[in-house]
């Protein structure tokens, strides 16, 4: 089986700082992979390689291959806009646009040239249902997205990412700004979404990684120290540094 995403000898530099050191990684479709590790270990940098978000940082240099469906996206001639249609992203803090709930979800669709009302309505409803938000907002779609709760805003951002039907969803600490109930809803959502999407999630919450992911990668000072099934990482890690980290002995 061809992996959905893969990196080969991925090196990333921020100027002189060597932030990712030869990462060889692969994940299959319809899986959730958690990236864990202490602050500054490179996990968010690694995540952002898959939608070329690091391009926006001055002095950032990426070497090696980053493959999605077998295609190397670390290519200077690649159309990054096209790439980002296929790779959705959810950030740490909910960042809805100051528009209605409906227009937030429809935004990406409109950019992609979909303007027919009926199609937009269908796709917005589908995305809100996938994000487990439909029942809570279906009667208030014209309401401002800024007026709903933080947990609802984050699920709205997930719906916005899903509306354009990406094949890969990147999540960078998607629940760190949420209360426990909203966190639990988003975690359940992640678990359900893997039926249709491949998900890569960065989290500082190790228990969250344990709860939601199939595979876990432990990063430390720019290296991927251990990558294995989540059950193995959390019951019998093979490398002492991983064990020390997940048991709270450092980091």
């Amino acid at each position, binding site marked *: 089986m061809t992996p959905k995403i893969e990196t080969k000898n991925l090196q990333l530099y921020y100027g002189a700082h060597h932030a990712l050191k030869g990462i060889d990684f692969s994940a299959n479709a319809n899986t959730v992979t958690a990236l864990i590790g202490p602050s500054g270990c490179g996990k968010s940098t690694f995540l952002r390689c898959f939608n070329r978000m690091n391009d926006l940082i001055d002095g950032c240099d990426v070497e090696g291959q980053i493959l999605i469906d077998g295609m190397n996206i670390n290519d200077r001639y690649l159309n990054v806009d096209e790439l980002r249609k296929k790779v959705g992203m959810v950030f740490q803090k909910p960042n809805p646009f100051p528009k209605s709930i409906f227009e937030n979800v429809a935004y990406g669709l409109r950019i992609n040239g979909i303007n027919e009302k009926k199609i937009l309505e269908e796709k917005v409803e589908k995305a809100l249902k996938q994000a487990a938000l439909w029942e809570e907002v279906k009667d208030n779609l014209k309401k401002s997205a800024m007026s709903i709760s933080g947990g609802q805003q984050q699920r709205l951002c997930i719906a916005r990412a899903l509306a354009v039907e990406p094949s890969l969803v990147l999540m960078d600490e998607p629940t760190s700004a949420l209360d426990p109930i909203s966190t*639990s809803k988003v975690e359940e959502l992640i678990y359900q979404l893997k039926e249709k999407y491949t998900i890569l999630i960065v989290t500082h919450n190790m228990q969250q990684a*344990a709860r939601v992911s199939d595979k876990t990668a432990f990063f430390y000072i720019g290296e991927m120290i251990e990558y294995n099934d989540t059950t193995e990482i959390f*019951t019998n890690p093979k490398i002492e540094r991983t064990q020390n980290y997940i048991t709270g002995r450092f980091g």
Partner: protein
Amino acid sequence: MTHLETELGKLKGDITGMFILVQKQLNKSIQSLLAMDKDLAREIIAAEKRVNAEELKIDRVCENIVALFNPVAVDLRLVFASFKINSHLERMGDNAKGIARYVLEMNEKFDTELIEKLQLKEMFSAANKMIDENIAAFENGDSSKARLVFEMDERVDAINFAATNIVADYIKANTDKTVHLLNLMSIIRKLERVGDLQANIAEEIIFYVDAEVLKHDKSFHNKL
């Protein structure tokens, strides 16, 4: 249903499956004993490997749930109780295998009159009923059914207690069958142990459902 609920549901299904597997082993052990069916006894010994494999699998499931989901309250009690019930059931399987081993060693059937006098079938029936009650209690989270098990265990203990004198008298009258009769006594002890294990399981179910710890609380058992 949440991810954790799904995993806990699977665990409950695994434990119920283990109950049924071990109950079958026990039923077969008594059948093999009464009919002196050595083929059936061999079947029990072979199936013991499945019981052991199932125990290891359920241990692993419990470990994974604790490591991955950090269950709390009733969910945590369910995992702890399942872990211990699993171990008790495996030991019950060992007792069924132990009975089968005696059947393989013996060369003649037991005297029907003696079997009647010892109330061996009643003892087995009570042990079996205890398993049924525990399965229902565990599956439905119904601690009232688990509490019935202690009374049944008293009955099994009483039969076991009475058996010593009956067998002793029989040995005096049949000294040539001493080993054979001592083996029978060992089998009775194994059935008594099955009763104890079911009582232990009932305690775990009450812990899971009602958060009540009955272990070592003889006053509770005596009240029944």
